[in-house]
């Protein structure tokens, strides 16, 4: 009885049943993807299990293809594993089939790796970071990413074509790896991958002429006026209506320049200090004008932010091992196929 069950588990018939069933379920699933693009287009944004949890409230009977397809793939993986174990048990007489069974092993490893990554992985996109800034890597306690330099590349039409971000991966204070990431050249470390996504610009202040001197008004800048008074820029906000809400994901800014405002500190020759709001559209406040602060010809100053994608897939190294096993398996299968063909060479001549 057990022997029969084992034989069925190892059989090509079971493989055909499972591959056929998986194919049919996947065809049905692809139809669902086509008909519900707003729902399924987000599937790549998160690991499969996390996406599925988020999706569950909207799930209906037509979405059952995902767990069904996953279950069939798991069964197919078990069937492949049984075949592989059976082959190992008869290695002495079946070693010539090594190529085919390496493909089996590769498939098993890739399925396990994908399941592992789907359960314990992390995907995070649009992590905005400016030059010199450090951000914490999401869901990776103690790991940080520093952007050393950033250079977006543009086509002659002005369209961005690549984003060169020189980044350093840090574990606490320790530098683990420094590399320039651009398309097809991610920073990888273990199962972690840092990739270029896009870039954004954020207004950080204004360049202007004050008393016929070109100055940059931005957070931290200080300007001494002819009267001896000093103006310190304490804060800059691209839109005063959104103070406190202009810091986006991971400390990055992404606020359009609508109603810009400065929080300035005016310190007079007598060391008295006043904080004054200067809302650009409303003009310079009287107190600043009286102190001789007359900014003219204001031009916005922008800072580039690299928007990076940070993914962690703990199964990626195992998937790579599976891929190598499969590639080797294919090469060995081709070799053994042609060796057999050359031994029993035949041609058909009409």
């Amino acid at each position, binding site marked *: 009885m057990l022997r029969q069950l084992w034989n069925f588990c190892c059989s*090509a*018939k079971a*493989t*055909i049943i499972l*591959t*056929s069933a*998986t*194919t049919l379920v*996947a*065809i049905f*699933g*692809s139809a669902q*993807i*086509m008909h519900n693009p707003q729902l*399924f287009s987000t*599937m*790549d944004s998160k690991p499969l299990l996390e996406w599925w949890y988020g999706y569950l409230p909207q799930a209906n009977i037509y979405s059952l293809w995902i767990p069904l397809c996953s279950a069939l793939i798991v069964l*197919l993986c078990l069937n492949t594993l049984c075949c592989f174990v059976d082959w190992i048990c008869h290695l002495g007489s079946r070693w010539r089939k090594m190529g085919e069974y390496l*493909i089996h092993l590769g*498939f098993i490893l890739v399925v396990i790796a*994908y399941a592992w*990554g789907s359960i314990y992985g992390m*995907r995070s996109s649009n992590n905005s970071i400016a030059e010199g800034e450090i951000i914490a890597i999401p869901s990776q306690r103690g790991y940080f990413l520093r952007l050393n330099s950033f250079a977006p*590349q543009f086509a002659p039409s002005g369209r961005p*074509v*690549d984003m060169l971000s020189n980044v350093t991966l840090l574990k606490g204070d320790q530098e683990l790896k420094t590399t320039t990431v*651009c*398309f*097809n*050249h*991610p920073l990888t470390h273990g199962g972690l*991958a840092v*990739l270029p996504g896009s870039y954004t610009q954020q207004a950080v202040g204004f360049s202007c002429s004050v008393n016929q001197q070109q100055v940059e008004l931005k957070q931290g800048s200080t300007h001494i006026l002819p009267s001896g008074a000093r103006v310190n820029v304490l804060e800059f906000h691209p839109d005063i209506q959104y103070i406190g809400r202009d810091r986006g994901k991971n400390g990055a800014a992404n606020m359009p320049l609508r109603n810009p405002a400065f929080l300035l500190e005016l310190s007079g020759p007598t060391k008295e200090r006043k904080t004054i709001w200067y809302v650009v559209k409303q003009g310079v406040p009287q107190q600043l004008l009286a102190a001789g602060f007359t900014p003219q010809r204001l031009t916005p100053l922008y800072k580039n932010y690299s928007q990076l*994608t*940070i*993914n962690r*897939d703990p199964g*990626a190294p195992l*998937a*790579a091992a599976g*891929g190598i096993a*499969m*590639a080797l398996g*294919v090469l060995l*299968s*081709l070799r053994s*196929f042609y060796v057999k063909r050359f031994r029993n060479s035949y*041609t*058909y*001549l*009409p």
Partner: protein
Amino acid sequence: MDINALLLHGSFVLYGLSVLLYVANARLHWPRLHRLALGTVLVAFGCQSLCLGLRWVAAGYLPVTNLFSTLFFFSWSLAATYVYFELRYRLASAGLFVMLLNLLLLYIALPRDSTIPALIPMLDTPLFTLHVVFSFLGYALFAMAFSLAVLYLIQRKTSGLLLPSSSMLKQLNEEAIFLGFCFFTLSMLFGSYWAYVAWGYYFSWNIKALWSALIWLYFAGMCHAKFIRRWQGTGYAWLSIFGFALVLFTYLGIGLLMSSSHPLA
């Protein structure tokens, strides 16, 4: 007319001529006609290869980044596959079917814009070239298996004297499926690795990737089906025909009818 256009149209005309010669051979059973048809195919394939080589040199990368160039490359892969099978096994009239398919691919490609677009950085990697080359070689072998399967069914129905024996066709069909599966596996591996370095994950749930995985599973099942008695012969031929329908839908159906982040191949 520049040299590329001359070679392209020349190969189209020569493939057309080879089809006529194969038809004539099917009616007249004249061995010289078969040799002439094969010679014409070889010259056409040479022209097409030269055209592909010149376009590759001019572009600095394998030009397979728009529908014209993928159709052209699919046609070249199919011709290469046919030349391999013909020189190795002398398929005779079996070539008619494959050459008709090849002619159809070139016919669809010719009116399209053949300008080589500038390569975007995302595609500027050898992984892209390897992924596409193995993918189209796999597709071409599945197309070859389809042709052999149709011939097998014709042979079983009519016992056509000019066709290879049904056992030969069955064996060649299995060979085409096996080789196609091997190449398609390599294509999937290079594609997955490329996806990982480009997007940070090696399997995407876009419609094209899902159908590619589905094709791989289907042909993996077929590689097992040849060991099962009831699926050998006619059953295997029908599986090959259905498999090629899946391939065509994945290549053309999804690329032309649906939006996908993976529209070219």
